[in-house]
C-alpha cells in the first residue's frame, strides 16, 4: 500500500495587509491559511491583567505601564475596554505615527507563521504598489523593514506586488493573464499581467478605511462601529435601511469611481502594451469587495468607460479574504 506522500511545507505566502495578515502554506496538496487582525489595543498595566492574559494565552506585549494586546484578540479587548483598535500599518505601509509598528507586525506575523519555523524557507510577502501621495522612500522603507524582519525570523523573503499576487492566486486558467484587484483596508491595488508578467501596477488610497472614516465623520459614529455595520449588514440593493447604509453606499461609489478612473488613466499612460488576442478576466479580491452586490456595481461602472482591452468577465475571487496570500504562495512555490 502506498500512502500519500506528505511534502513538508517548503515555501510560504504572506499577505501583509493594512487590516489583516494572512499566511498560506501548502500541506500535501491542500493550502492552509492562518489569519490575524493587523491591529492592537493598549490597556493599563496591572499584574492581575497580565496574569489573566498569560493564563488565557492571549498574545500580548508588556511595555512600561501598558499592555499591548495584538491580533484577533485586540478587537475583543477594544470592546471590553471601550477603546478603538489601532493599526501598525496605514494606507498599505508601516504606520509612521505608531512607534514600534514593525515590532507589532513581527509579533502578528509570528502568530500566523509560527515562531522559529523559518529554517531558510522561501516566503513571498505582498507589498503595495506606490499610491498617489506616497514617496518612494516610504515604500522602500516599508519593503526593506519587512524584508529585514522576515530575514531575522530565518526566512528567505521576496516581495511581490499585491495586485500581481491576486493574478497568481486566481488566474491560473487564463495562464496568469488578466487584471487582479485587491480592495483591502488601506489601499486598492491593481495589476495587469500578461502570461504572468506584470504590465502595470498601481494603487489608490481609497479603500475600506477610507469608507469607514468618511462615514464615521459624516454620521458622527466611531469608525469601528461603522466597520461592524459595513461587514455585517451592508449590501448594494438600492434600498438602504438607514442613513449609515446610505452613506456607506456613497463612499463605496466614490471608491469604485476612483478605481475605474485610475484604471482607465493607467491604460492610457502605459508605454508598451502587449497585444492581447482575446478578452481578459478581471478578478476582485480583498475584504472590501465582500458586500453583496459589489461585483455587479463595479462591473456596471467598468462597462461605462472605454478601456483599450476587452474584459471577458468580472468575478469575485474564490475566497476574497485569502486570495492574495494564495497568490504569494504560488509565487513562492514556483521558485522553490
Amino acid at each position: 500500500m502506498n500512502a500519500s506522500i506528505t511534502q513538508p511545507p517548503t515555501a510560504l505566502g504572506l499577505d501583509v495587509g493594512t487590516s489583516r495578515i494572512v499566511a498560506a502554506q501548502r500541506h500535501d496538496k491542500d493550502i492552509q491559511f492562518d489569519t490575524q487582525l493587523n491591529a492592537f489595543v493598549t490597556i493599563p498595566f496591572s499584574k492581575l491583567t497580565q496574569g489573566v492574559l498569560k493564563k488565557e494565552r492571549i498574545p500580548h506585549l508588556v511595555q512600561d505601564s501598558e499592555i499591548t494586546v495584538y491580533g484577533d484578540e485586540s478587537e475583543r479587548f477594544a470592546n471590553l475596554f471601550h477603546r478603538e483598535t489601532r493599526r501598525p500599518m496605514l494606507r498599505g505601509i508601516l504606520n509612521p505615527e505608531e512607534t514600534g509598528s514593525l515590532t507589532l507586525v513581527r509579533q502578528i506575523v509570528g502568530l500566523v507563521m509560527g515562531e522559529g519555523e523559518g529554517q531558510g524557507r522561501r516566503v513571498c510577502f505582498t507589498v503595495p504598489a506606490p499610491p498617489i501621495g506616497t514617496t518612494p522612500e516610504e515604500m522602500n522603507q516599508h519593503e526593506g523593514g519587512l524584508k529585514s524582519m522576515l530575514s531575522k525570523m530565518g526566512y528567505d523573503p521576496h516581495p511581490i506586488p499585491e495586485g500581481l499576487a491576486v493574478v497568481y492566486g486566481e488566474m491560473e486558467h487564463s495562464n496568469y493573464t488578466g487584471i487582479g484587484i485587491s480592495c483591502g483596508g488601506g489601499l486598492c491595488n491593481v495589476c495587469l499581467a500578461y502570461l504572468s508578467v506584470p504590465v502595470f501596477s498601481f494603487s489608490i488610497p481609497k479603500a475600506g478605511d477610507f469608507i469607514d472614516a468618511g462615514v464615521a465623520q459624516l454620521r458622527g459614529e466611531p469608525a469601528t462601529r461603522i466597520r461592524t455595520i459595513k461587514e455585517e449588514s451592508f449590501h448594494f440593493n438600492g434600498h438602504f435601511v438607514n442613513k449609515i447604509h446610505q452613506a456607506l453606499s456613497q463612499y463605496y461609489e466614490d471608491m469604485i469611481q476612483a478605481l475605474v478612473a485610475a484604471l482607465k488613466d493607467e491604460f492610457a499612460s502605459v508605454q508598451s502594451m502587449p497585444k492581447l488576442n482575446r478578452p481578459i478576466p478581471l478578478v476582485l479580491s480583498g475584504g472590501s469587495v465582500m458586500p453583496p452586490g459589489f461585483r455587479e456595481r463595479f462591473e456596471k461602472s467598468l462597462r461605462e468607460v472605454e478601456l483599450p482591452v476587452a474584459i471577458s468577465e468580472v468575478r469575485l475571487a474564490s475566497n476574497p479574504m485569502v486570495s492574495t496570500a494564495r497568490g504569494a504562495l504560488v509565487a513562492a512555490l514556483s521558485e522553490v
Partner: protein
Amino acid sequence: MLRDALRRALQVRALEFRARHFADPADRLHFLRGKVARISDGAGGRREATQFRQACLRHIRRGCVTAVTLLVAFENTETTLVVPRKPKAKQPTGQIRLVQTTPQFDLYSNGLRVEEQYATSTAPRRYLIFPAHHAGPIGLGAQWRSEPAGIVYHTTESHMAPFEESENRSLRRAGEGLLAYVSRRRSYHFIIDRFGRVFRIVRESDYANHSGNSVWADRYWVYINLNQSFLGIAFEAHSRPSSAEPSVNAAQIYAGRILTDMLRSFYGIPASNCVAHAQVSVNPSNYGVGYHMDWAAHLPFSQLGLPNNYTLALPSVTLFGFAADPAQIEINAGGAPQGMSQGWEASVAEVRREAAARDIPLEDYRKQLQKRYRDAIQALRGNGAYQEYN
C-alpha cells in the same frame, strides 16, 4: 517585421498550450515565467533557435555513436534500437474546454459538470513506460512520463439499494457513504453515481489507487501497474456478467460518455487505451489474468464513444505470458459474446503463433515472457516506480 510578429504570435499560442499541461499552479507559473522573457526578447528567440539547431546536431551525433555501440552489443538479438515516438492522439469531436470553475464544481463546454466536494489528492503522477516491441532487455528504452495515458473503467461493487422512488433516501445515503469512503482511500479519479453525477475523487494531476497489479499496452508502449499512468473511472454499480440487465443506467452511461470525451480531449488519450478493469488486472503470484473482474463484460464501449475494445488482445498474455482458466474467463464474461473472452481468445492464439514461429513449446515461450515481466518489475523497483496497491 510581419514575419517576426507572426512568429511571436505562434510562440505565444504554443506557450499557452504547453502551459495548460501543468496542473499545479506553481509549476505552471514557473514554466511561464521562465519562457515569457525569452519570447518577448526577439533576439533571444533567434539565439535560442540557433542553439536548438546546434543541440539537435550534437544529439544526432551522440545518438549515432550510441546506436553503433549498442548494435554491436546486441548483434545476436533482435533488439530494435529505434525508440518509437508516441503518435499524437486523435481528439474526439471538437475541443472541450473548461467553462467555469468554482470550489463546488467544474463545468465543461460539453455540458459535463464535475462535483468537487470529495476531491482530494495524493502525489503528482510519474511513471515509467517500456517500449512495446523491443526484443532486448525490457528496461532499455524505458521512459518517464507524467501525463495520463489511458482510462480504466471500474464498478464500485458497493451496496446497491433498488433504484426506485421509495428508496431515494437509501440511494442518496449509500452514495454519500461510498463517496466519503473512496475519497478517504483515494480509490479512483472519478465516480459516477447512480443519478449520473460525476464526482472528482483524486485530481487528474495525481495518481489514484485503482489498478494496482495491472498491465496494458498500446502500439508503442507497455504500461505496468496503472495507478500512475491511467485514470480510474468507477461507476456506482455491480458487475453482472451473467445478467442481461445492464449494470448501469442511462444517466450513468451519458455521464460516462461526456467524462470520457473530456478526458480524451484534455489529455489526448487514444481510444485503444480506454479499457475495463478486468482487461488489465493481473495476479503476479500465479501469473493469472483477471484478478479483478469488474466490467469483464457489458461495458458499453460504443455508448461511451469508443470502439469495442473487448476485441483487443490482452497485453498481459501476449507480452508477459499470463494465463487464466478459460472456463473462468467464460464465467466472468458471462458467456457474453461482447465480453473480454474475445480478447482472451485472440491473445491465446497470438501466443501460440509466436511460440510456433520460434519453434519452442508453448510453456517455454510463456516462461520467457514471464521473465520479461519480472525484469520489468525489477526495472520499476530499481527506479523507485513500483506500486501495487489496488
